[in-house]
């Protein structure tokens, strides 16, 4: 029983450790976008192959709008397979993935699309106007649009399977029960 208190010494470190552990729950990426909840700005661009691509044609679907570039290594390289995989998995259920290639060279962008075997439509934002409309700060950034064409979620950094599925499932579910 004597001098048991001395074992309290190591406990002094515990509050600090707990506080630091709490830090993991926070994300410095949580920067709110004023665009969330607003209608998504429309655009009409051309795909890498030159075909027209208009956002309005996808109204009624859940749209995953992904801003990327071939020079954006490594985040864009990480998320490209994720986007392709989920595009294939969800396309039958009223979901479309639209890529917007930002400030890029056409050959480099085509090589990127070829390397990853991307099959979803990719537009080229040559003048950077669409990126400005969406307040894109850096690539990659991804906007999730609901069936009414409103921006619902903005994701900064590489999209993971988890982020894609939870967000899209939620938007599909609420659209099914209006």
């Amino acid at each position, binding site marked *: 029983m004597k*001098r048991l208190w*001395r*074992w*309290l*010494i*190591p406990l*002094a*470190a515990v509050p*600090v*450790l707990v*506080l*630091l*552990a*709490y*830090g*993991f729950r*926070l994300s*410095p990426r949580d920067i709110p976008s004023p665009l969330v909840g607003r209608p998504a700005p429309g655009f009409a661009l051309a795909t890498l192959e030159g075909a027209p691509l208009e956002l309005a044609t996808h109204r009624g679907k859940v749209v995953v709008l992904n801003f990327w570039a071939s*020079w954006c*290594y*490594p985040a864009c*390289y990480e998320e490209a397979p994720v986007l392709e995989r989920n595009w294939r998995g969800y396309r039958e259920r009223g979901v479309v993935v639209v890529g917007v290639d930002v400030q890029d060279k056409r050959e*480099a962008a085509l*090589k990127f699309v070829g*390397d*990853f075997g991307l099959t979803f439509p990719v537009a080229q934002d040559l003048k950077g106007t669409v990126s400005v409309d969406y307040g894109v*700060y*850096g690539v990659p950034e991804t906007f999730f649009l609901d069936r009414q064409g409103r921006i619902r979620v903005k994701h900064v950094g590489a999209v993971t399977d988890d982020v894609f599925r939870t967000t899209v499932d939620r938007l599909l579910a609420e659209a099914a029960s209006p």
Partner: protein
Amino acid sequence: MTADLGYGMTLIALGLAVYGGVAAGAGARTGRLALIESAQHAALGVFVLVTSCFALLTYAFLTFDFSVRYVATNTNLGTPFYYRITGVWGALEGSIILWSWMLALYTIILIVRHRVGARELYPWALATMLGILAFFLLVMTVAAPPFQRQAPVPADGRGLNPLLEDTGMITHPVALYLGFTGFTVPFAFAMAALITGRIGDTWLVLTRRWTIVAWYFLSLGLLIGGWWSYHVLGWGGYWAWDPVENAAFMPWLTGTAFLHSVMIQERRRMLRLWNISLVILTFGLTLFGTFLTRSGVIASVHAFTQGSIGILFLGFLALVLLTALGLVAWRWETFRSEGELDSVVSRESAFLLNNVLLVAAAFTVFFGTVFPLLSEAVRGVKVSVGAPFFNQVNIPLFLSLVFLMGVGPLIAWRRASLDNLKRNFLWPVALGIAAAAAAFALGVRSLLAALTCATTVFVAATIAVDFTRATRARLRVGESLLPAMGGLMLRHNRRYRGFVVHLGILIIALGVMGSHAWSVQTETTLHRGETAELAGYRFRFDGLTAVEESNHFKVVGAFTVSNGRVLGVLRPAKKFYPQEQAPIAYVDYRLGLREDLYLVLGDFARDGSQATIKLQVNRLVSWIWIGGVVLTLGALLAILPERHKSV
């Protein structure tokens, strides 16, 4: 291929380190020399393997081997040769490899130096070192592997963070990490002392020089970091109380406290518990610093990317702190029966106060650094703690510390007599007061500036008093002047080389004070041919030119500077890197002993007709670097072995 080879070597090194740690521990417990020898061989193996990993990664950088993910992320075909080498440790994974390599190197030096002669403590110290090394190797295999395959192999890499393209980046991280890792050795011996119960003076004597080495490198790292910040970041300052700067500063503060408190234990058998605690705290803070920079918990300009590594580091920090403090609790009884403080007016109490102030400073820095986290946890409010808080709290602390620097070395041990005080401090105090009066007469109206002047002159005078007195004593016994002074430096190394360090701190204090009190700046937009004026200097905007470099494009402004006569042309620039969203400022400056001219280019018209420019005249900043050179020189002298025989 490269990636697999490197990864394999890392794995083997990890296995060897774990084995070595266990073998050294078992050898220490059973006293079987064969086990300890085996652990030494394992340590050698780890060193060879980590060195090979490092060499392999460097080779991958030099040959643009983008099949290694880390290489692809941190270099591109345009990266110049020199920065392909510094790029090796430019980001998280490489920094861990460098860190592990240094730890392995220190382990080898520990083996070479202490294998014979420290029989009880050495095996446990070796086990601790290898254990810590194993952790870093674990990080290298699990959380931040530098050797990871990249498929498909990109045609070009992303490129190094442009801010790191600076000569300071070769020395700053290396020095800083040598400092950080250097504190592992004193910690290892402290652990050995706790485990064996030999908490007397042996471990202190063994680690004294190690501590100075670590302290030297840490100081050097901090100073180079300040210099980098000043001449690269372009905001005209050298210290911003950024979380990561704080992370390096905290162990420096507690390490400094330890360097001083050691002397009291040696002299008066006091403060054993305190010394052990300081070493644990210092090492804990180096880990905390690493955690901060690499976990992304606290946002900072220095921060590396985040990931599972943060959790790993936090776990290790918890393990280290709980084990070390648990050992302290376990050995609690042995810490008793210490000497006691005889008088408040004594060298012991001056040193004690110095320690309290240093630890208090470390605590306030810690508090300010984690406060944003605390605020968010408790109140859910995002706040940021800026320079005003740190300055307000720390400036009085540091000023008191500088004052104690004058008192401590000259006041008598145990109990100072009035005579001792008069003999040592009459002149310095008088000079200090005179300095304040002189500053006032010269038009200095800031109380802080006047106080700083008075304190620094006071301390400088105490050093001068002591040095002349000791030299005179030697002259009386027939030595001539120069050998007498040199002999003092060589023989009483701790005292007089310590004075050199103190002198360096004084010079730095003056530089910091001057730059805070007297620097001026302005921001203005100039058309071509127009002139701006600041503090007696005229800056004429001569135009813009565009230059294409190997990995970026830059726009350079030309500004002719004159103060009556033409001093030269300053060329600040803005660099545009394809992989960066925002351009990077390239500062141009003209350094001087009295003041620096410092120009940062802001926005400009594309046709070169006008440009916005930030002009600064920074006063006395050069003295910070001069003081830094003096300080590190003093620390370097203190590392040299003490000579007991006459010259």
